[in-house]
């Protein structure tokens, strides 16, 4: 069983509202969408951002768009108006999500 970074099979975009981040994860090919549903779970996303002590992580499934949408609360350490991070918007974080390893048979 081969492991690949999520970046191999999906693309992503982040958006911010205050201290809340949303990340879309979109499969390039329909046949890979079930891999996203099975492996890119809210729990794994929460673990990926553990250093920032996020609040709730919600996952929405959009099968017609072969996409998942994650909404992560309190993950931007204050958001664009309060953060000390160079990237207060969290705009780079889609690529952090794309580092997740995915098992592919």
């Amino acid at each position: 069983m081969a492991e690949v970074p999520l970046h191999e099979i999906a693309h992503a975009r982040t958006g911010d509202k205050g201290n809340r981040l949303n990340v879309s994860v979109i499969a390039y090919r329909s046949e890979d969408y079930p891999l996203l549903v099975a492996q890119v779970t809210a729990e794994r996303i929460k673990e990926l951002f553990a250093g920032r002590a996020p609040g709730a992580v919600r996952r929405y499934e959009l099968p017609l768009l072969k996409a998942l949408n994650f909404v992560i609360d309190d993950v931007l350490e204050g958001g664009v108006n309060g953060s000390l991070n160079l990237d207060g918007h969290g705009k780079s974080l889609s690529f952090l999500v794309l580092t997740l390893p995915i098992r592919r048979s």
Partner: protein
Amino acid sequence: MPASGPVHIGCGAGFSGDRTDASGPVVDALAVSGRPSYLIFETLAERTLALAQLDRRRDPAAGFTPYLADFLRPVLRRCVEAKIRIVANFGAANPMAAGRCVLEVAAELGLSDLRVAVVEGDDLLATLGADAIRRWPNDERAELAGRDIIAANAYLGAQPIAAALARGADVVVTGRCTDSALVLGPLVHEFGWAPPDWDRLAAGTLAGHLIECCAQVTGGYFADPGRKDVPDLDRVGFPIVEVARDGTMVVTKPSGTGGLVSEETVTEQMLYELHDPAAYLTPDVTMDITGVRLVTEAPDRILIQGARGHPPPPTYKVTVSLDGGFLAEGEISYAGPNALARAELAAEVLLKRVKRLGINHPIRCDIIGAVSVFDSDGGVRRRASGAPVDGDYRVRLSGSSDDRTTADRIAREVLSLYPTGPAGGAGVRTSVTGRVRTVSAYVPAEAIRPRISVLSAPAG
């Protein structure tokens, strides 16, 4: 008489710092389409309005988007000639002054009979006052007490824009409104869409949501070389949405421009800044995109259908802006052999110094080139990163403080590393900037009273 064929709406700016040379090809494409056409400019981010309000406090004639003339000058004459009407949230904290500025640009260009409509009523600090604002439910109630409220603006919907167009405006200038209303307003005007036709109102909201960030749907914020390639990003075309009466739409861009409109670019932008995809809340409609399907009609033409709508919430969202103190930042570079160790030492020195000064404000140190933007304030990822010892690294200290003097002292600690820090420290830059904190509050719809004024050029 409602329009029968599609209405074409182009976007000329997706934020206040957007390119000013990309709207020309959009206007050219709209002009030859022969369809009822509009050009929108979205120049108002969440905190822009608070900064504009501070400008207005200093100068009663200021407080609107600073690049208004730069955006309008290249296209206004062509828009008037081709009957392309403009809808823009240029107004920020001073829509009336923005409206007058539009007339000044028109006069410069010799356009004497331009009709400009100004939509006001979003500024609740002016109409209801700070005490009322403190009483409304908000996301972080504690933050409102004791802090100076700089601005409180409701997100108005599409109705006032449609009403302004019905009064014959060539240009509609608003303050705060939902970004999507800039597109839904013209569609409501052209097609007569109204409650309870929620699905159509949702389609118009989706059309607005897709183009309001401008190049973000045409290949901007998208390219990932070798994986998601975008042609000619240096001259990326800005978007046009063609919306039919039944609510189906095509997103495209002017021919001959760079960029890309694909199912991938449209999907990324559809989900941008969206939370529950079944309930995107606006004052006009609650939008549900879970049934939306995309079809590639032709290269750079994506057909979108299936938006559904439900009644809007009973409250308007209001962004309340508060004084947020100051952000201090300083950076210094270390390169070559053992650079990471020198950078880590600089970071250690900085944190010790700031602590010894008795500054108990939030502080963060990054090493750019190892791990920075992915990291948390605690630096957990950097310590585990295993970045190479030799390299080209930049140490960045940032801190926040309510008072300017403390912020200056934090930034100066980086400057003083030149002669006192590790060997080879180079290229220091420091800055101290004022910050604005924003909180979302929710206000009953009855408290919101939009006003429309029509301005025309003074005689002579």
